[in-house]
């Protein structure tokens, strides 16, 4: 997957957290953002690859891009309206 240059508003390091804490921490972090702002999430829980897009869809947020960096998975999430 090609990596776009995306400027995040905030970053969340969820490396080492196990299911379902990456989603819970993401939800908390996104509540601090305004609509349109972007959260960069870095996680190592492989379940996040399925979990974060499912969470985003059910909560009206958007996964702009995701990719793997070594053992980590990096997501860019845009807060919905």
């Amino acid at each position, binding site marked *: 997957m090609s990596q776009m240059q995306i400027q995040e508003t905030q970053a969340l390091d969820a490396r080492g957290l*196990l*299911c*379902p*804490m990456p*989603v*819970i921490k993401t*939800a908390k972090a996104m509540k601090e953002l305004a609509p349109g702002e972007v959260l960069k999430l870095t996680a190592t829980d492989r379940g996040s690859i399925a979990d974060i897009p499912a*969470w985003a869809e059910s*909560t009206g947020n958007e996964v702009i891009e995701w990719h793997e960096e070594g053992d980590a998975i990096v997501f860019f999430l845009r807060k919905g309206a």
Partner: protein
Amino acid sequence: MPDQEKLVVMVTHGPDEPELATIPFAMAGAAVASDVDVVMGFQGNGCLLVKKGVAETVAAPEFAPLGDLLSTIHELGGQLLVCSPCIKSRGLSEDDLVDGAEIVAAARFVAEITSATSTLVY
């Protein structure tokens, strides 16, 4: 947006079965993170998980620690309902339970379940 969704999660396994005790908390945690109203119901040995000091001792491989999940669910507004006869039969009282735990009986569980979008039973 549809009407507010509500998930009831019934917990019947205790600390002697860490995985079956933890999975309902993982589901409830994901639900509160998804803006779903959550009611956790504790029956049978599940009641032991909301006895003060117990959740912190339970961890299942590859899941977040149960104590972290319990505190997060409570913090994010999840309700913790505990079966009255189940705690009495185990010699427990309200003072033995974690903050936020509410002692209820069968009719309250029925009311929560019949008004929920979905119910999970573990």
